[in-house]
């Protein structure tokens, strides 16, 4: 990734690349069989040990204290091999970003410091929705000095398995009015939490999600009451660069597999790469993957340097690369023909993962409309 011209990020790139090759490549198909096969706990534990789960968390909170650029470098490299782990890293980082945006640094520090194992350091979050678009299904009721949360929230990524969950809820005031929403931290080991079986999803199979039903569960407010949308928007803007990075990695992985296959597979007496229509398809993929690299680098730098309109750059990057990734991975299968459709190869998973990743942070078309709204408002 071009961001690595900043030499300090090269170690992160090497770390992620080596981790992906060593821990993910060989068992990609087996790991993807979740929830019908075992969850790859040992790999996630090693990702935690390697420091991949607290990249953007400040050092005083026991994180690596890096910017979005470092996170993007890692997600790019991991996703080229298996984006499911990227989904876990992303979700955890998104929850951490929201907490930081809400001023919840001390709470986050507490989680990081008290964690006894990998799962207890993870924070679950409904990463595929924007709470401002679809009303949250959780209500919070004041009970003495704390809050009690009730209701159902869907598609909580890492729900049920992480130590905590960060969830949006509307605080019911005495007059019944509900202005905005607030984030709450919930101990997933607490009483009153019911989780469904893991959701069987299109992609990112090894990045599990469940629906959670809460019945009077204690929630610690994160940030000011009714300030959830602002916190989400801030974190979301930053994490759009991370979405772009995941898509970039998926695209590069798909292109590499297609390029290799096209030099080994024969049609009409020659390697398929030597048929110009197919080479043109590869050419399109090469261009798209190359562009993706530049786009992610630009977006990550804009975020880290707090360029004017950095949020718009990050959002545009994610939207554009999500579309490109869905197209490129479709062609990636096509180049492998029937083999590309089989789970023995990586292309079909990338096709599913790209579409799944496109849905991160909320409804894709609305994010596009939101981008224009933000531009019109001069944000």
């Amino acid at each position, binding site marked *: 990734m071009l961001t690595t011209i900043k030499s300090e990020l090269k170690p992160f790139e090497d770390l992620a690349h080596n981790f992906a090759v060593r821990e993910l490549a060989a068992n990609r198909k087996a790991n993807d069989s979740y929830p019908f096969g075992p969850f790859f706990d040992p790999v996630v534990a090693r990702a935690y040990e390697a420091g991949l789960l607290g990249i953007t968390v400040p050092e005083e909170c026991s994180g690596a204290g890096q910017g979005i650029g470092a996170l993007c470098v890692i997600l790019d490299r991991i996703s080229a091999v298996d984006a499911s782990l990227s989904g876990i890293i992303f979700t955890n980082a998104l929850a951490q970003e929201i907490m930081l945006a809400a001023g919840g640094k001390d709470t986050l520090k507490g989680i990081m410091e008290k964690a006894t194992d990998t799962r207890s350091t993870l924070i679950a979050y*409904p990463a595929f929705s924007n709470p401002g678009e679809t009303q949250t299904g959780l209500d919070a009721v004041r009970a003495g000095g704390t809050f009690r949360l009730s209701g159902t929230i869907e598609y909580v990524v890492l729900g049920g398995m992480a130590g905590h969950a960060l969830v949006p809820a509307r605080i019911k005031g005495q007059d019944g009015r509900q202005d905005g929403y607030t984030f709450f931290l919930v101990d997933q080991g607490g009483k009153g939490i019911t989780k469904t079986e893991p959701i*069987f999803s299109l992609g990112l199979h090894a990045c599990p999600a469940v629906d959670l039903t809460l019945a009077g569960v204690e929630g610690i407010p994160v940030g000011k009451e009714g300030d959830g949308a602002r916190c989400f928007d801030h974190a979301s803007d930053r994490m759009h660069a991370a979405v772009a990075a995941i898509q970039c990695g998926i695209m590069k992985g798909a292109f590499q597999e297609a390029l290799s296959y096209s030099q080994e597979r024969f*049609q*009409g007496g020659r390697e398929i790469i030597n*048929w110009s229509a197919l080479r043109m398809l590869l050419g399109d993929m090469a261009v798209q993957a190359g562009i993706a690299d530049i786009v992610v680098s630009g977006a990550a730098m804009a975020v880290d340097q707090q360029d004017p309109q950095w949020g718009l750059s990050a959002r545009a990057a994610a939207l554009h690369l999500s579309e490109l990734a869905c197209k490129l991975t479709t062609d990636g*299968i096509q180049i492998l023909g029937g083999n590309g*459709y*089989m789970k023995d190869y990586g292309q079909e998973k990338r096709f599913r993962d790209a*579409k799944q990743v496109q*849905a991160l942070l909320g409804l894709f078309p609305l994010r596009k409309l939101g981008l224009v709204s933000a531009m019109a408002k001069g944000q």
Partner: protein
Amino acid sequence: MISPEGSKSLPDRGSRFDESLFSLQAMPKIPRGMLKETQKAVALARKFNDEVVRPQALEIDRQTHADPEYLPWDLVKKANEWGFYTMFIPKLFGGQGFNMPASAYVVEELSSACVGIANVVFVHYLGVAGILASWNVSLANKIFREVVRGQKSGKPSIISLAITEPGAGTDVEENELIDRARLNCHAEKVKGGYIVNGSKIFISMGHVSEWCCLIAYRDLKKASENTVTFAVRTGTKGFTFGKHEDKMGQRACPASELIFEDCFIPDEYVLRDSSIREGFGTRPIADLIEQYIHFVVSVTRPAVGAFGTGVARGAYETALKFAGETEVGGKLLINHEWAQAMLAEMYKNVVIGRLSYTEANYANGLPGGIYNILQRKPVYYYQKYAPKFIFDYLISPLLDLEITQRIFRRLFVDSQSLEVQQRCSGWASLAKIVGTDMGVKNSQMAVELMGQAGLRHERGAEKFLRDSKLLQIYEGTNQLNRINLFNNLIGSSIPQARAFEE
């Protein structure tokens, strides 16, 4: 090199667009009974969807993930009970004799609920087409009547088609490429039959079929003139099943590896040996083999276009339902203008897919096309209303006569001009590309419109997307079909143009 003068005239060399208005040409000659019959067939498919497919499509898909070795025996039994495996077998061969173009609409209907299950029903007709296009009506009659008996007895007897090999996918669908292919399925002529060795892969419904229409080659280096087509019964010594593929979608329909090890196939089960020319006119052998392939794909590719159109429709209907009952930003999704534009686009895609496969089938119904004779009014109405015993006891025995074989070959093989072959094959590719691209497109749009709900298995949209992708690959990748379209509809009128020769 095309001279400037020559290139100027290129667009004028092909047929004018109004010569390709197949529907307008065909409509006046089409028997009126075909409409009612088609509606009856689609109504049955709709009922099958409501009672059999929809209640279990998602659960079966889930089951195949829990157990990748799942085989759809129960579905095959149900489809057999409902008569789908004999529906489009002509009455001449004991079948129900529904008009063949109606099959595309049935395919669309079934695919709108589950294209995997639609394949469980309709891959059988790929085998039927492979057998029929050999014009060995004696053996076809024997096998098709077994399918009919299977329906009556409740013991399904369905047919698969085996052509793709581990080292050759696209190559085996184009006679111009096949001599350069890495083939392995060899047929050696021995006394009384053939010994077959080799393997086939990605054979839809292989594990659950009673018969396999197998394409093998007497000379692996010169397959373009040495193709042999067999009917092989499951259980034949030397014929076994290997791997059951772990696919992304269409998981209700297994894709099988077929292994042939010194498998002896008697002469009586040879559908066609290209080296035997009797009754096949004066065309070169390679051209006859090519014509055979084009006969099959002229029927099957519009059907795959219909599969794609069905998926496009299913995805659209799923998205429409979601949009009508889900609030976003305080109002129903269906009342957001951007969502309305997306739904309109999806609706359009369905219609375009349907128009394409319909037009391709009209091309097949014009003189020289494979559907033409059965759609001529006297033949159609005779087949429709003549008592069954006439076919079973008077006509059926005649199908074993050599003279009958020759008549069929004369009618279907000799009477088809190269131009008609090109027209039908080119349009079949067009319909395949359009329908399957629309299927993928609409599935992507449905997932986008539904957001996180679209990602969940139980909502159906993600399954449409997984299922749809295979359609762009089988029956020739859409890349191959583009070149086939060029070759047959564009390059055929340009002497300088060469396909597959760069």
